[in-house]
């Protein structure tokens, strides 16, 4: 260790470092030795003192007025630096405002696009709905006006005695409709559900909910010799009809 330090001191790195003549690696080495070894630090401090003493021997009276020139240019430099910082701050603020507004606009654009998609979807749905309804109306019109249409009166029995419905079946157009005109009151937890037996399979036609629309025709799936049923089911409907609760059947 001592040898290494002595070797370093014998080399001229420290003297070169003193003058700022070292390469990057030499500077790092010098700084490492100065920090690590007190004797190197001591030598370095001594060299620095000697350099100052030596340089002082060459001191020369500075000319009159040079100080003022130097102070003036230093102040100018300071003002320029300050101005630069001021511009930098202004630029940063402008950039932040720009970034903020960009984000805001981008966000707004995104939500408008989403809204636009939603409105388009709604319009499409509405169009589809209207087309379906129009189709339905046309079919109803065909069924009701066609001479081949047969009309069946449906009367309920048991609890559904007061149930009155009329089914319209057109074998030519293969369309059938039912108009439920009167529905007896049921306990709150019960409801009427319609079914159709088509080709031996029972198809759920849904719960009869709203009897305010008394003149509305409900479409029934058409099949040869199909049978329609109305049953009383628990509220919300059932997946298969409860046979003992059949209150009406319609053969068509």
């Amino acid at each position: 260790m001592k040898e290494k330090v002595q070797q370093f001191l014998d080399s001229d790195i420290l003297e070169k470092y003193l003058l700022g003549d070292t390469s990057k690696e030499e500077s790092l080495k010098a700084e490492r030795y100065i920090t690590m070894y007190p004797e190197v630090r001591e030598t370095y401090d001594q060299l620095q003192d000697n350099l100052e003493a030596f340089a002082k021997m060459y001191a020369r009276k500075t000319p009159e007025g040079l100080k003022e020139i130097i102070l003036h240019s230093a102040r100018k430099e300071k003002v320029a630096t300050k101005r630069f910082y001021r511009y930098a701050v202004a630029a940063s603020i402008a950039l932040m405002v720009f970034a903020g507004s960009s984000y805001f606009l981008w966000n707004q654009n995104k939500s408008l696009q989403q809204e636009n998609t939603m409105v388009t979807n709604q319009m499409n749905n509405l169009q589809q709905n209207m087309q379906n309804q129009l189709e339905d109306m046309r079919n109803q019109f065909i069924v009701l006006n066609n001479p081949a249409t047969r009309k069946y009166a449906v009367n309920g029995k048991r609890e559904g005695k007061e149930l009155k419905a009329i089914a319209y079946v057109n074998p030519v157009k293969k369309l059938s409709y039912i108009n439920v005109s009167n529905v007896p009151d049921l306990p709150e937890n019960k409801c009427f559900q319609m079914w159709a037996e088509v080709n031996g399979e029972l198809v759920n036609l849904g719960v009869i909910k709203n009897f305010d629309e008394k003149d509305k025709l409900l479409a029934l799936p058409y099949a040869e010799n199909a049978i329609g049923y109305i049953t009383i089911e628990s509220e919300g409907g059932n997946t298969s009809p409860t046979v003992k609760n059949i209150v009406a059947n319609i053969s068509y």
Partner: protein
Amino acid sequence: MSTLIERHIVSLLAEKDDKAISLLYEHYGDTLYGVAYKVVRDEDLAQDILQESFIKIWKKADTYDPSKAKLFTWLFRITRNTAIDKLRSVSNKSDKEVQIDVSDVYNLGVSGIRPEFMDVQENLDKIEPKYKIVLEALFFEGMTQQEASEELDIPLGTVKSRLKIGLRELGKIYGTSITQLLLIILLS
């Protein structure tokens, strides 16, 4: 080499207080001007160099690290390198070669002698010329040791040893002048 004033200047520099420049000029201006003059040997050029160096010092104030160098060492490096760069650019322009004028060693700064510098002038004369030549070549001419060896026609090993011994001698001279000063104070 007042550490207190040094510390004060350093803290002013760190705060970018322009009082620092004023203080630096008062305490180191003459020495740094002397360094610049010694390198270029021209009054006008030396003034330009001093001005340029002070602007550099002012701009680089935040890079100064007291743990790496004393304030004067840092100031000296900046001034010396600015002067050497200037000298090189001037010599390139005039296509003149930088040469060591050996005779200059004996009439150092004659034009610049002022009574207040007499004591340091005496100290300077105490340094043996063989060391002084090497120190000046390395410190003020910006020569590498190899270049100094070639220019002065001295073996490289001798350049190295004269640099070391020369720097040590400086310490002795400085040390004795301090001791003398203390003796004078004590005796009076």
